[in-house]
């Protein structure tokens, strides 16, 4: 046993005795995802993160990221168990420094020798799928639930096909193929997720993606038309008001109302298109996915409610000059959690991590190049 390697007396119960547990016919227990984060509490973490990041000229951003992730993971519970973010700040810092150095060299070279921009753009096409796979792999390996880590099995070839080849083909179909490509991208990402040796099964269909894109497009178009009519009415009222005297005062008021209506309308249109697409796709992906014989998912996000939530979050952030960002982030997480159900059966209590020897939480030892997240965010 691994404990004896550390020169400690063997402890009898350190080995889970799985053989004694009978595997019954799986009956599922269903629960809503709990989110217990609080806006005020996260605000404190967020503002201190920013201050320490500025004071340390960005070094602390790695700690800031880990703290934020741990806060959200730790407050998200499925079936009474919280998620766990395992990456250490040093790992994140190494990845960022590396990514930063690469970007610095690239931008310096492109500044000095403009032709390099073309070379890099071409290289990026081939590097991007690799970065994508590495990024997802890292983030899933650093995510644990009930002390078992997630895994990702997507290959470079798969990523290249779905994220480079298909989008290029879609361009030549005047983007008519795009919803199908989006479906393939999502499927590639979710289908290659595994947990405790079980793979995720995803049976999404292209039709729903077409439906989501179609609805979002026409709703946006419709909203624009309504928006234009409202603006025209306001402009008309302003125009009528001017000949009746008191031009400056009324004109000023109307200008403010006009501006407010414009901002409100703009935010609503953006929120609406996002809400339609995201809610439709989220509900569909959750309903069509299953963790092989262990867990089923359900998402029942309502387009209208979600639109109101997104729009109010955007307005809140804009009018507070960004200060309410943490509150908005917590609201968003809490809202999505409340509309997500996960059904698990007793199998979940007996899963083991197939990457056992790699799953030591003394991550510093294993922090090789493989364990580095290259993304700057």
């Amino acid at each position: 046993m691994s404990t004896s390697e550390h020169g400690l007396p063997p402890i009898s119960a350190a080995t889970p005795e799985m053989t004694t547990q009978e595997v019954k016919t799986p009956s599922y227990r269903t629960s809503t995802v709990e989110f217990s984060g609080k806006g005020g509490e996260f605000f404190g973490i967020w503002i201190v993160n920013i201050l320490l990041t500025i004071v340390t000229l960005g070094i602390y951003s790695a700690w800031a990221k880990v703290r934020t992730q741990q806060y959200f993971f730790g407050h998200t519970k499925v079936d009474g168990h919280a998620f766990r973010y395992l990456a250490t700040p040093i790992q994140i810092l190494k990845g960022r420094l590396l990514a930063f150095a690469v970007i610095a060299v690239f931008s310096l070279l492109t500044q000095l020798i403009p032709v390099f921009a073309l070379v890099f753009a071409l290289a990026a096409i081939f590097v991007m799928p690799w970065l994508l796979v590495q990024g997802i792999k890292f983030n899933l390996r650093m995510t644990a639930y009930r002390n078992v880590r997630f895994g990702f099995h997507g290959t470079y070839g798969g990523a290249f096909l779905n994220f480079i080849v298909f989008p290029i083909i879609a361009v030549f179909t005047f983007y008519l193929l795009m919803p199908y490509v989006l479906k393939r991208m999502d499927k590639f990402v979710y289908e290659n997720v595994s947990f405790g040796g079980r793979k995720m099964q995803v049976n999404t269909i292209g039709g729903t993606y077409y439906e989501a894109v179609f609805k979002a497009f026409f709703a946006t178009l419709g909203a624009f038309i309504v928006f234009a009519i409202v603006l025209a009415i306001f402009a008309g009222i302003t125009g009528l008001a001017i000949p009746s005297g008191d031009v400056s005062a009324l004109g000023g008021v109307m200008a403010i109302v006009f501006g407010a209506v414009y901002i409100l309308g703009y935010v609503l249109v953006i929120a609406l298109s996002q809400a339609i697409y995201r809610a439709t796709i989220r509900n569909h992906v959750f309903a069509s996915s299953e963790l092989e014989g262990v867990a089923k998912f359900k998402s029942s996000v309502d387009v209208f409610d979600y639109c109101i939530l997104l729009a109010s979050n955007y307005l809140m952030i804009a009018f507070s000059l960004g200060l309410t960002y943490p509150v908005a982030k917590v609201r968003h997480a809490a809202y999505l959690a409340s509309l997500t159900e996960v059904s698990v059966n007793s199998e979940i209590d007996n899963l083991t991590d197939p990457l056992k020897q790699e799953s030591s939480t003394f991550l510093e030892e294993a922090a090789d190049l493989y364990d580095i997240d290259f993304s700057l965010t």
Partner: protein
Amino acid sequence: MQQHFGFFQYPASSQQIDAYLYEHADFRLDVFATATGERLHTDTEFNCGEILPGLPCELFFADGSCFIPKDPSYVPAKYQRKTWVAKFESHRIGILSALVLVPVTCAWLFFVGIPAFAKALVPYTPEPLAEFIDQQSLVAIDTFLEPSKLPITEQEKLRAEWSAAFKKLGPEIAQPRHIDFRDAEEIGPNAFALPGGTVIMTDQLATLLKDNPDASLAVMLHELGHVQHRHGLQMMASSASTAVIAAVLFNDLESVSEIIIAGGSSLVQAKFSRGMETDADDFANQSLLKLDKSPQAFIDAMAALAKEHKDDQKDSWTSYFSSHPEIKARIDAAKKLITTPESTSTDGKNPAIEEKSADEKAAESNN
């Protein structure tokens, strides 16, 4: 010795049981099963993640097992030193001071810190890099400027006149890397100094000031001021560092901040640039005095340029974003030197020309 209740998770397994923990004075932890009292784990070596307000401090053992205390305030003595951030984050005064300090430190960094850093960095620019920058800048410039249509003899004559005047200013003054002319129908009368020290005058400006050689010398002295102070390189260093620092600092803030950063940094750049123009004007006027010429030459040049560009007086708001100071202010500054030339150069040496040793070294290496 206090008991801490919680859960024990087996290594790499989803099995979990109720357990309690004893912490010994030597940092050793003992974990027992609540139901049976059986010892599940004992270790002095253990880790914990970041300690956050409101979340339990999970303890990870070397074999991959884990203990999760129920009490979110429990932190083992070994990791008490890690709790200061959580205390800061959950303390009212801590949060309030962060709220105040964030804009203050940001403003300091972008308005004071980065420009000072850029200025300090510039003297270390390797000479081949400066040359390379100018070569590349010229390649870029020549995509929209035409070769000069001035006769070669005319170009040579102007170059010789200016070079002679520049040399008279003394060895501590940097010489331009190269003086060149370009035909710029679109831009009109103008002159500019490239970051590496090359100075370009447009044919249009040379023609405009043909009958007033002192005025065109004044313009060139202004550009020489940029070269002497290495303004172009400072600008490059400053905008690069601003972009880098902003990217590193604010990537967690997401898109909202981008607007603020873009606006803020262009504000900073413009302020920085106006300061440089004023410095270059001072340099030009002081150099004119040193060459026994009147700053009136500079005023003539400004007046001619203003007339040509029909420079409308900018209002106070847009001037914050403008890269050059208003023409009137520039002329007024020169006029002051005509009426009381002694006041700015009482000790016989021009403050604008009196440069730091680093700049002198740079000037010598240029020669």
